[in-house]
């Protein structure tokens, strides 16, 4: 039994390492500060681990993990008293955006901020779009129709464009 559990743990760790980008991006979009990022990161890993024994590949790993990550992020309640035992790497405190060229950084950060200000479900939709998911995949994860995905994304794009124009005037 211990051997099976150990094999499962190893397989899970490998899976999380392969998909760490996904979790990292969800966390950065939904968590407000460094403490919350660490909290949310941990909660996503925990939820994924709990679900892992039941994962039967009915959907792709990516879809499965997006669903867990987004569900966890949207329903996450920041723990006030939680004492963190695990030492987290500093890299969680630094947005990967700082590796972009300078001329693009400001625009990117502005757009990122506007996306962060979107309602949480719209935020999830945009994240999946940025991750180059098809409308069908987005619909499966979010629980809406593919046509609804298209409509909503068009609306969000217009909204962000207008807002960006107003802010840069």
């Amino acid at each position, binding site marked *: 039994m211990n051997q099976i559990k150990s094999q499962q743990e190893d397989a*899970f*760790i490998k899976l*999380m*390492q392969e998909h*760490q*980008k996904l979790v990292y991006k969800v966390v950065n979009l939904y968590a407000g500060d460094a403490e919350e990022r660490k*909290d*949310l990161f941990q*909660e996503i*890993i*925990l*939820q994924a681990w*709990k*679900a892992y024994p039941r994962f039967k590949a009915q959907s792709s790993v990516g879809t499965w993990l997006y*669903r*867990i990550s987004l*569900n*966890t992020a*949207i*329903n*996450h*309640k*920041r*723990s*006030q008293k*939680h004492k*963190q035992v*695990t030492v*987290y790497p500093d*890299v*969680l405190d630094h947005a*990967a*955006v700082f590796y*972009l060229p300078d001329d*693009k950084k400001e*625009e*990117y950060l*502005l*757009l990122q901020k506007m996306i962060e200000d979107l*309602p*949480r*479900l*719209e935020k*999830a939709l945009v994240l999946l*779009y*940025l*991750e*180059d998911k098809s409308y069908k995949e987005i619909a499966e*994860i*979010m*629980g*809406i129709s593919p*046509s*609804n995905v298209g*409509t*909503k994304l068009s609306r*969000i*794009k217009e909204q962000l*464009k207008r807002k*960006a124009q107003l802010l840069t005037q």
Partner: protein
Amino acid sequence: MELDNMKQMWQKLDETIERQNIMNEKLIRNMMYERTGNAVRILSNTEHLGFITGVLLLIVLLSQVNKMDGSTGVIISYVFTLIIGVASTIFGWYKIQILSKLNIHEAPVAQLTEQTERFRMMIIKERLIFIILGPLLIGAFYIVMTKMVNGIDVFDNIGVIWPKVLFATVLYIVILLGVYNQYYFRNIRQIKKSLDEVKAFLKN
């Protein structure tokens, strides 16, 4: 910059994240077994605790039924406490069943959000009812416990008890008015807003 331009840069960030290798094996192993503030789990733990407390209280109340002889007031208080206890316990079981169906791992995102918000609204309204019934509940419970523990029928000394009950009720109402808007209505407004957002999202 528009969203479509951002998409290209977003994809390029993947390489940066991979190079940083945020999730080493030790970190993931530690995270797998630590606990943090998940809203659904907190709700579930609270409801399980409430249910167990309710059951224990009912057992105590039912075991003391023979002591509830006396004035009509005592009997009514006992029956009232029992009814609230049973209703509360059954409702607690119902809530646990709903929570067990909130499948964070398999439910589509929008549906889970809607279910969670509806549940939170149910909890808040339940608490509101308990607050409104508060003075009656406290009074009835006090009467029952006094009879159960001390064998005293408070209605035999009603002249002594009433000023205390009146004072406690006035104090309760003052505190209640202070707490109401601060906590419960603000929460209801917030949850209602969340629910409206989800409904708007689910509409075509």
